[in-house]
């Protein structure tokens, strides 16, 4: 069924189709319409979920953690300050190996106040043990939200699905909404997680661990996330088999095969970059765009392969590691160094706090990258 949906409504449809049992959230612009739509589904009886209207984001994440510990399928969504406020609980969800799913409608961090997009909030999840997917269209928000529940279950780790404030969150576009049976088939029977409460064989979850025991839990999360690329690819394949929706992989490649300069980019701005690349190709310049769809697992193999073919790599970041540089660029450089790829990497950071990005802007970056 084709619906005209914003990214936020698409997320709510994804939650409904995934038959989520507990939703807990606190309102923040631009996330609000995700939760408003879910509230509507719940109050109309279209989604049989418990909706916990908490008094803070810290509690929102704590509540979905509690719900996941009960064995229920749980969802929350937030942005910027909200994500920072729940940060302590973000780590708790991962450390507990609980399959929480969170929508992150990316927004710049204050001060100064800004409600517009950049990826600084999303990138703070990088070290916390979460799988991190990023959508660039309403359709992708819906598909990724459903996929996230399966990924969370298989990894026994929380999964974040990010999308840009307003550009994706509030712009309506035609979205193919899969029928309920297809999603039911894809997600399969709910099985009891070994991390969930057990009254017959009780255990204490998260007790003190001495130095001899602590490292193995972190190492296991690290190993799991590092190897999660294949898990996600399989999930995407099964989703394709169930619904017929497109498959992109961890990185969507556009004009990359023969490109001299390739730009790595994440989120809605990839659309402008692709437009720019198209324009330049018409002028005979060989440029391509590699749209990153997953930060954790980091698409090491894809990045290496794409960069090896190119003579120049441009990494466009919509966030800073302040005092160091672009986050994505740092990770791309690290992979290339480890794999012995010596393609030069140019790091460009822009679009902070919703500042305007356009095809012309990206054309200039490409030209600079090509040294034209």
């Amino acid at each position, binding site marked *: 069924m084709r619906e005209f949906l914003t990214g936020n409504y698409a997320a709510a449809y994804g939650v409904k189709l995934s038959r989520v049992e507990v939703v807990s959230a606190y309102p923040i612009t631009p996330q609000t319409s995700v939760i408003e739509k879910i509230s509507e589904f719940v109050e109309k009886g279209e989604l049989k979920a418990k909706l916990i209207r908490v008094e803070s984001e810290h509690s929102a994440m704590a509540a979905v953690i509690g719900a996941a510990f009960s064995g229920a399928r749980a969802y929350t969504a937030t942005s910027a300050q909200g994500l920072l406020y729940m940060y302590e609980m973000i780590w708790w969800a991962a*450390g*507990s*190996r609980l399959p929480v799913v969170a929508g992150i409608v990316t927004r710049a961090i204050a001060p100064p106040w800004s409600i517009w997009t950049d990826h600084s909030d999303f990138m703070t999840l990088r070290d916390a043990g979460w799988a991190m997917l990023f959508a660039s269209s309403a359709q992708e928000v819906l598909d990724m939200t459903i996929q996230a529940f399966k990924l969370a279950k298989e990894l*026994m780790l929380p999964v974040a699905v990010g999308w840009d404030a307003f550009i994706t969150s509030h712009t309506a576009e035609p979205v193919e909404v899969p029928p309920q049976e297809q999603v039911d088939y894809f997600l399969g029977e709910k099985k009891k997680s*070994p*991390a969930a409460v057990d009254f017959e*064989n*009780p*255990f*204490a*979850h*998260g*007790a003190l*661990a001495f130095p001899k025991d602590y490292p*193995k*839990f972190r*190492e*296991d999360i690290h190993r*799991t996330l590092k190897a999660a690329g294949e898990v996600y690819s399989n999930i995407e394949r099964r989703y394709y088999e169930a619904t017929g929706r497109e498959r992109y992989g961890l990185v969507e490649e556009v004009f990359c095969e023969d490109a001299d300069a390739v730009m790595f980019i994440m989120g809605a701005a990839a659309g402008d970059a692709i437009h720019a690349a198209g324009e330049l190709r018409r002028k005979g310049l060989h440029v391509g765009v590699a749209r990153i769809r997953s930060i954790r697992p980091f698409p090491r193999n894809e990045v290496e392969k794409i960069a090896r073919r190119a003579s120049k790599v441009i990494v466009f970041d919509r966030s800073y590691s302040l005092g160091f540089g672009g986050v994505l660029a740092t990770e791309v450089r690290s992979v290339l160094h480890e794999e012995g790829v010596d393609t030069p990497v140019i790091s460009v950071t822009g679009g902070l706090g919703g500042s305007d990005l356009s095809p012309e802007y990206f054309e200039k970056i490409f030209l600079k990258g090509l040294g034209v």
Partner: protein
Amino acid sequence: MVELPVARPSVGAAGKTGNWRLFKPSIDYRKCIKCLLCWMYCPDGVISLSGKGLPVIDYEYCKGCGICAEECPVKAIEMVKEVEG
């Protein structure tokens, strides 16, 4: 297999806590009136009841706090200094 930080119910989760003791409660069963107050007020649950309803202390885990001696209404429990051994 996922490494889960889950801990299972066990007696002695902090080891043989009887080793912490400086004074040892000693029950004079001739005085005991089986009121069970020592059993009730023991924070460590180390006092069990024999078939005859008499309190029996598990010295492997008794930390020697002395609440039982303090609360015994007939002073049937005495705290005796542990001898080094």
